[in-house]
């Protein structure tokens, strides 16, 4: 939300647990233009000048004034249940915090509580989702290590997303969550169960009525949310499928390599190259394993988060619609002239304000969210692509070293031709080599045409090696080891 800043005087609202507390905060926020002095810590002042606080690159250490980590999961056993407690560490320079460091222990339920309070207080802000409550199907034990670690990371991200949000990070509930040693007393306060029920009933009633006229931009938003949800779910599914296929590929590779070793057992001359190939297959298998691991650790969680985000967005859109519907209902009642006009008028005005605030909040948060989504997914995809490049580079090196080892056998027939030329091949077009060398073969499609051509020719075999298929690998006689290193 551009231009949003830390509210002026927060302390007065600390104990004000009225549902509308944050709306008051909003209405006070005319700050930026008049440049009213902020009583907050100097570092947080930087926030107000941050026009676009979405790009992670723009957030250097100075701008961030609160650091939260979630770690150290520990099992807690009571008579009734077993659950995991996570350590939540906070380091901050914000003045509304009494101290600069806090350490508390929280369980998943506590996170749920925090999130639901945040959503209640800011119904049309986009609150980052939590990892799912229930275990994925197929898992036997609820608390296996992978599950806990995945959840821990997601909880960590959740708190960080909240702390990066200009409005949510100022929430009193957030502060309480981070600082209070004992959360139970705080949990009991706040709108009761019944009032929440009432709200839900009203919401359902309103949605049944339908909206009169939703502003166009929110209709567009709604459509986008639907589409986005579909797309990100699809990408998530595709990614899961890729992991599955990769795992099966890995299993077969692990059976394949040993067939070479077994064969080597009955050979003499051939034993050495056979074992060489077996070794290569094994090493490539390890790289495959790492690549799968990376996918699971980086891309899958990121996609999954945004699958959940899509659901959050849908809920936000619904809540906004409900707020509007509530207003419309009361407004219509007013127009029917059947009831006490004065009292109703006040109520209608308040509801109208509420609608406007809700819409503005959403609009503001929307672009922030989009930016954040772009950044997060972009970086996850980039990381995946980088890892895949690295995977292929490593496998390439493995097979090249095998060729090197084969070349080391003195070829009696060829004399005088053999020379190992250190050739560096980069993946961006340039290739450097010793200009004194003679002819080379393009490795690219060696078995289709073993033609030789001078090194400085720009098109070696135009039929197969267009500029797109770089890097070209130059070798002197097919048997000789090619490049010695790959340069980024």
């Amino acid at each position: 939300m551009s231009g949003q800043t830390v509210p002026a005087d927060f302390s007065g609202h600390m104990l004000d647990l009225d549902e509308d507390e944050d709306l008051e905060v909003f209405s006070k926020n005319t700050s930026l233009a008049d440049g009213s002095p902020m009583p907050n810590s100097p570092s947080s002042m930087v926030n107000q000048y941050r026009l676009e606080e979405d790009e992670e690159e723009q957030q250097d250490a100075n701008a961030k004034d609160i650091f939260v980590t979630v770690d150290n999961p520990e099992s807690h056993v009571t008579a009734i249940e077993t659950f995991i407690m996570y350590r939540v560490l906070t380091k901050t320079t914000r003045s509304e915090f009494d101290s600069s460091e806090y350490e508390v222990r929280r369980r998943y339920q506590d996170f749920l509580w925090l999130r639901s309070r945040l959503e209640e207080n800011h119904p049309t802000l986009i609150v980052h989702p939590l990892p799912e409550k229930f275990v994925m199907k197929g898992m036997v034990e609820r608390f296996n290590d992978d599950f806990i670690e995945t959840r821990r990371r997601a909880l960590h991200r959740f708190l960080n997303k909240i702390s990066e949000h200009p409005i949510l990070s100022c929430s009193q509930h957030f502060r309480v969550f981070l600082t209070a040693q004992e959360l139970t007393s705080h949990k009991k306060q706040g709108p009761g169960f019944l009032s929440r029920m009432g709200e839900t009933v009203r919401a359902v009633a309103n949605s049944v009525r339908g909206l009169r006229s939703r502003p166009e931009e929110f209709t567009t938003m709604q459509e986008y949310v639907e589409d986005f949800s579909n797309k990100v779910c699809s990408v998530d599914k595709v990614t899961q499928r890729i992991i599955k296929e990769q795992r099966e590929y890995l299993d077969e590779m692990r059976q394949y390599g040993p067939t070479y070793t077994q064969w080597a057992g009955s050979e003499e001359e051939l034993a050495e190259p056979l074992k060489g190939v077996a070794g290569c297959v094994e090493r490539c298998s390890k790289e495959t394993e790492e690549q799968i691991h990376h996918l699971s650790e980086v891309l899958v969680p990121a996609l999954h988060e945004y699958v959940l985000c899509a659901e959050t967005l849908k809920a936000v859109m619904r809540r906004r619609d409900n707020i509007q519907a509530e207003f419309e209902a009361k407004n219509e009642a007013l127009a029917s002239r059947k009831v006490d006009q004065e009292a109703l008028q006040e109520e209608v005005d308040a509801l109208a304000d509420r609608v406007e605030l809700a819409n503005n909040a959403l609009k503001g948060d929307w672009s922030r969210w989009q930016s954040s989504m772009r950044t997060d997914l972009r970086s996850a995809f980039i990381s995946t692509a980088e890892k895949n490049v690295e995977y292929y580079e490593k496998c390439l090196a493995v097979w090249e070293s095998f060729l090197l080892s084969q070349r080391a056998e003195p070829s009696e027939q060829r004399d005088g031709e053999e020379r190992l030329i250190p050739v560096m091949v980069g993946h961006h077009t340039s290739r450097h080599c010793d200009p004194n060398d003679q002819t080379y073969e393009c490795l690219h499609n060696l078995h289709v045409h073993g033609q030789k051509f001078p090194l400085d020719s720009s098109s070696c075999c135009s039929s197969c090696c267009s500029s797109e298929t770089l890097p070209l690998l130059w070798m002197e006689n097919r048997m000789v080891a090619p490049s010695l290193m790959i340069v980024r």
Partner: protein
Amino acid sequence: MRMRPESPTSSGEKKMAEDVKDESVATDSELLAADGSQNTAVEEEGGCTLLRRMEICVAEAEKRSGKNAVNMQETFTVYLIETRPMDAVAEGRNPAPDSLWRRYSEFELLRSYLIVTYPYIVVPPLPEKRAEFVWHKLSADNMDPDFVERRRVGLENFLIRVASHLVLSNDKILYHFLTEEHGWREVVYETGFQAKADSRLRALSATFRVRNTDKRFMDMKHYSDELQSHTSQLLRARARVADRLYGVFKVHGNYGRVFSEWSAIEKEMGDGLQSAGHHMDAYAASIDDILEEEEHYADQLKEYLFYAEALRAVCRKHELTQFELEMASQDLISKKHQREELATGIVRTFSFKGMTNKLFGQEAPEQREARLKLLEELITEGEDAVKEKTAECEEHVERAWVDMERFEEQKDKDLREALINYAVMQISMCKKGIQVWSNAKECFLKM
């Protein structure tokens, strides 16, 4: 280029072509001296082979229809064999090649003939009749164009191997096969080779009952079993890996589709997503070529899988000749005992005649004389048989050992090259992967 350079023999063939200038070239007259009857291989000094004189290739494949032996309509594939005199090629003239069409069954007939006629040679195998070690996408259909193409290459490889073999290349039937389209079958049958073929039962019996086999041959037989077992295991595992790899690549194609759809709803991210999607499509498509190439590697291994069978056949022939020798010797010994028995009256071993003699009295001297005379004849025959069998056995051992050593050298060289080729293919695949994902990364950066 008609011949695939990765075919293991190609480098050998090129080498021999180069050596042509140095070596004396056998004249055609030598080949044509025979009057059409079967000839035996002549090992010449300097090792001239048919391939030196003649460029051979299997250029094309075509579908034909015709009536088969039981008068039913069938579709089959024929292969075009082209030959050109090597000296014309060397001189740079480019005469039109002589050509004829042969179908797979004729190749099989040729090979059967060679196996029977040269039982001491490890006869090169034919490409497989039916597609085996198929991974899921690859068709097991004999009419599939990829299969036909690979078979064409395999048949060419077979001809080149045979024509470059010191012994096999001189065979008249081979020459006929390459040069005369019609009536070849009849000529082959006329050689009567089928009658010379060893019966399976005899061969099997020999394997179990033979006593003194050459250890080298037994080791070689054992090796052939291992070779067969290991290569088939490898091929099976490779096919499964190929199947899985295919799956991995193809699923990435889904990224292409989804990214494209997703890009339509995004503003800033749209371009990056869209172009990344294209790269994912390219990645998914690239596996087809990659695996097609790998099939050639599989074919190289398959050749040696089938070679193992040929190697074993040579070893079995040794067992058979040795067994026949032992039988002949045994027979001779028993006849000599009988003679001794008759001559001296001493019964060495229990015999029916001996029993009846005891029971019913000895036979008359004239009868005894007749029988002795018969025995002497049989013994002489037996001695000749033993001599013959001994010679046969020794000759087989000698010649076979030479060829088995040649085979071993060829196998080591060819398979090492095949492994290197495989590494080259893997490198090529890795480079493609690096390319695609680097491009994808560039696109993601633009998001």
